[in-house]
C-alpha cells in the first residue's frame, strides 16, 4: 500500500493551516487562542530538552517544569517582531530563552550565597544528566561541534536526538517534503556532526 504523503516544504498548505507564523501574528494581536496553541505546541519538547540539559542542582532550585513553563509564557508574550523562517527556528529561539532564564536563575542563586554549597557537591550532582551520561569531555566536543554546524543541520540534530520529535513532526517543523526526507536530512546532519566532532581533534 502506498504510504500517506507528507506536507510540502513551504509550510502553510491546505485549508487555512495555522502555521507558527500565523499563530505568532495572531498572538501578537492579542489572540489568546493562538497563544495557547503555541504554548501547547512547544511546551512538551522544551520540557524534555530542559530535563536533559539542566544540571541536577539547578533543577533542584526550582521545579524544571515551572521554569520551562514560565519561560515559555514570557517569551511568547514578548516575542515582538521575531519572524521565524520555519518552526525549527522558533524552537531554537525558545531554547535560547530558556538557557538565558536558567543563567539568570543561577546568578540569583549565587548572589544568595549558594555557590559555596554548590562547589562542595558531588561532581555528578553538578553535572547535567547528559554530562553524567557521556562525560564532560565528550559533551563539550558534541556541544562545540553542534555549534559549528549550519543552523539547519543543528536544528535537525536537536529535534531528533534531544527533542525526540518523530520524522513526521520534523518534516512539518523543518519544512521537509516528507518523513523520509526528514529522516535523510537528520542522518546527513548526524554525519556532518560526527565530522565536526572529528575536526575538533
Amino acid at each position, binding site marked *: *500500500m*502506498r504510504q*500517506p*504523503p507528507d*506536507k*510540502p*516544504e*513551504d509550510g*502553510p*498548505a*491546505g*485549508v*487555512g*493551516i*495555522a502555521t507558527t*507564523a*500565523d499563530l505568532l501574528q495572531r498572538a501578537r494581536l492579542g489572540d489568546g487562542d493562538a497563544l*495557547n*496553541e503555541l504554548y*501547547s505546541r512547544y511546551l*512538551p519538547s522544551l520540557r*524534555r530538552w530542559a*530535563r*536533559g540539559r539542566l544540571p541536577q542542582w539547578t533543577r533542584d532550585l526550582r521545579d524544571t*517544569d515551572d521554569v520551562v*513553563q514560565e519561560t515559555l509564557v514570557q517569551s511568547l508574550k514578548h516575542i515582538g517582531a521575531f519572524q521565524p523562517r520555519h518552526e525549527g527556528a522558533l524552537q531554537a529561539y525558545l531554547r535560547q530563552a530558556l538557557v538565558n532564564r536558567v543563567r539568570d536563575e543561577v546568578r540569583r542563586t549565587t548572589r544568595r550565597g549558594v555557590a559555596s554549597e554548590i562547589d562542595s557537591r558531588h561532581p555528578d550532582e553538578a553535572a547535567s*544528566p*547528559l554530562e553524567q*551520561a*557521556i562525560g564532560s569531555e*565528550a559533551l563539550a*566536543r*558534541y556541544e562545540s*561541534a553542534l555549534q559549528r554546524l549550519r543552523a539547519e543541520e543543528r536544528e535537525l*540534530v536537536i529535534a*531528533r*536526538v*534531544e*527533542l*525526540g*520529535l*518523530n520524522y*513526521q*513532526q520534523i518534516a*512539518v517543523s523543518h519544512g521537509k*517534503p*516528507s518523513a*523520509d*526526507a526528514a*529522516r*535523510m536530512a*537528520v*542522518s*546527513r546532519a*548526524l*554525519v*556532518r556532526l*560526527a565530522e565536526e*566532532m*572529528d575536526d575538533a581533534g
Partner: protein
Amino acid sequence: MQAEPQREVDLIASSVADGSSIDWEERSAGLSSRERRLIFHLRIVDAVAHLYRSLPQDEIDAGDDDERSAAPAGPRWGRLILLDRIGRGASADVFRAWDVDLEREVALKLLVDDGVMEDAAANARLLREARRLARIRHSHVVQIHGAERHEGRIGLWMEFVRGRTLADIVQTSGVLTPASAAGACADVCSAVTAVHAAGLLHRDIKAQNVIREDDGRIVLMDFGAGAEIGSRPSVAGTPIYLAPEVLAGGAATVASDIYSLGVLLFFLLTGRYPVEGSSFDALLERHRARQQSDATELPPSVPPAVAAVAARALQPNPAERFGSTAAFEAALRGAINPVVPGRAASTWRPWVATAAMTLMVSLLVATVANRRTERSVPVIPATAIAVLPLQAASDGPEASIIADGLTDELIAKLAQVQSLRVTAHASVRRFRHTDHRIDEIASQLNVGSVLTGSVSIDSASDSTVHVNLRLIRAGSDVDLWSQHFDRPLGNVVALEGEIARAVTRGVGAVLNGPEATRLSRQPQHVARAEEAYLQARGYLAQNRHGDEVRPAIDALQQAIAADPDFAAPHAELARAYVLLGFDELMPQADAYALAKREAQRALELNPDLPDAHTALADISFYYEWDWVGAEGSYRQALALAPSDARARSQYARMLSAAGRTAEASAEARTAAAADPFSADATLTQGLMAYYERRYDDAAAMLQRALRMDPRYPGAWLTLSRVAEARGDFAEAGRLIDRALTITSIASWRADRIRVRALTGDREGARNDLSQLQRELAARNLTLDLPHEAYIDLALGDIDGGLNRLSDAVASRDPSVLWMAVDPRLDAVRGDARFKAMVARLGRP
C-alpha cells in the same frame, strides 16, 4: 559483506537517527581510522539520544491537557487517518487526513466534539455545506469527496489543496502584479460562475478563502456561508468584503458576490480594501461617503483596463456592476491580454481616467469577451521547466564560463527528477542575452515555469560563490520560489542538488526516494577542483566542435589532479575523449582506452552519475560493439536522468543502427522535445529520417538544425548525404565543402572524394584520394578502411570495396555500425557478401 566506508558511516548515522541498536564493534571492523573515529563520534551522539529517550515520556507530556493540540499522526475517524490539524474554527477543526480506502490525501472538516451535547445546528450546517459543494464541479472549486457521521461526529472531506491562501501570499510577499491579480481573480470568477449556475451564492468570497495551489491553480474554498439564490438567510460573510446593500441589511445576490470579487481584486492589487472601517457602523458610514465621492483609487501602476474592471465590480449600485461573474471574468481576461503587443507590465503609465479611455476599454473588453470563447489555451504545468542561463554578476570571461557550467550542472541535476520535464541547456542558451519577457520565453520553450538567476564569485575572499535564483510561473509573473545562496567553492556541486530539490518543491513536484537520496548528497570537493570542473562544463556546454573541446579537457584534468576522488570530472573527461575520437583529433584506440578508463573511474566513485553511464554506453556501442551492454547503459542513464536529451539522442542513434527505426524516431522526438532549440537533437531527428529514407523530412530537419547553429559541420555533412541520396551529387559536393570549412576531418574529405567519383569525375577523385593519403602518411596516419571502401564502391570497384568493408567489420571500426541502414550502401545491399557482413555486426 562490508559496505564501502563512507556508506557505512551514512548507514550508522541513519541507525542512530532511527534509534535502532548498533553493534559498534562489528560495524567498525575493517574501516579506515577516520571512519572509525567518525563512528566513535556517532556513538557519543547515540548515547545522547539514548539518554533523552530514557527520560520518562509520560512526565514530559504531563500538563499537555489539550489533547487536540498534540502532535499529528494516528487517530482515525472512519476510513480516514488524521495526520495533523491544519485549521480550527469555532465549531469545526480541519485536518489533513489520509483516506485509507482510496489511498489519497484529503482535507477533513470535522465538527468539534465537546463531549457535552451534540450541536444539532452545527451538524446541519456542515451537512448543508457538503450538499452545496456536491452540486458544484469545477476546476477552481475545491472538490468534495464525501460527508459522514462517525462516532457521533459529523465530518466532510474534500481534496487537500497544497498551497497558500491569497491573503497569506499578499501578507508575506506583497501585492500581486496586475496581470497576476487579474488572472487569479478571473479564475475565482469562473469558480463563482459555477456556484451561481448551481443555484447558490457563495457569500464569503475573500482572500482567505482562495488558495493558490503550488502549481498555480486557484481554488475557491469554504462554502460554509453559502446559500440558495433567492433565499433570505441571515447576514453572513466578512464585513469588509460585503457589498454596501448587504451591509445595510439587504439580501445577498449575485451582484453582492460580484462586489466581494471586486474587493478581492482590489486587495490583491493594493493590499488594502476599497472601503475600510473598524466596525459595522464605520463601514456603512464610509460606504455612504463613497457614494457621493469618486471611485476607489488604485495605484498608477495598475493598468487602466484592470482598474476599470475593478471600478465597475465595486460600483455602489448593484445594477451598475457586471451582470454576471462570467462577464466580470471576460472583462478581466480581456484587460490582462496584451493591449499593446510587446509592452511590458511595468511600463504602464499613470492612468488618468477619461470618458474616451473608458469607452475604449469597454469596447476592447467587449471584443475580447466575444473572442474568448474561441480561445482555449492549454495550461502547461509548472513541472515543465526551463533554466535560463545564469548571468555572471562578476566580470571576466572566467565568470561567464563558470556561470555556464553552473547552469549546465543545474540542468543536469533537474533532469534527474522523473516528475519534471526539463529543457536542455542547448535550447536555453539562445536566451542568454535577451530582453524577451519570461512569458514569451516560456511559450517558445513550451514550459510552464522558468528559473532565472545570477552567479558571482567573490575571489577576493575565499572564493565564495553567490547564487541568486527566482523560479517564476509562466503566465502569472508569480515567484514560486526565490532564494539567495552563498557557498564556498567546493560546496557548489552539492548546492546544485539542494537547489534542484527546492525547485522541485517550488513547482509542486515530489521527488521519489532514490532521487531524494541522490540529490541530497553533500559531496565536498577541493575548491580548485570544483572551479575547474565547472569551467569545463561551461566549455562543453558551448557546443564546441573539434579542437575547441581541448580547454575543457585541460580543465577536467586539472580538476582531477586537484581532487582525484571527484567523480563528475572523470565522467565529463570520458565524454570529451569520445568526442575527440569521433572528430579524429585523437587515434580511435587512444580515445577508447582513455574514455573507458575515465568512465569506469567515474562510476566507481559514483554509480549514480548519468553522464558516466552515457559515456560508458557510447564506448560500449562504438568501440566494443556491445549492443546489449550499450543499451543497458543508455537505459540506466535515462532512468537516472529522464530529461537528459543528449543521452536520449545517443540512444536513438544506437537504436537506428540496430534497425529499430520506430523506437529510434520516438526517442529522437522525445529528445528534441526536451531540447527544442538544440541543433544536435534536431540533427538526430534528421538522421533518423535519413536512415528511414524519408529524405524530405530529413532535409527539413537538417536545415532547421543549421538555422539553430550554422556552424554545425555534422548537419552540413548529413544534409549532403541527403542530397546524394536524392541523386543531386553537385549539391552534395557543395554541402560537404561547407562542412569542411568548419572542420576538416579526413573521413569527411573522403566523403567529398566519393561524391566527386559519383559525379563521374573518377580521375579527379583518384587524384584527391592520393593527395589525402599522402597528407595522412606524412602524419603517420591512414584513411579509415570504411571510407576507402566507400570510395572504391563509388569508383565502381565493388569487390575491392566489399573486401575493405569486410576488413573494417573485422577490425570493429565504429563507422560501419550503421551499414545495415546506411543509404550510401544501398547499391550493394543485395550482395550476399554484404549480408554476411551485416550479420557480423552482432546486432541483437
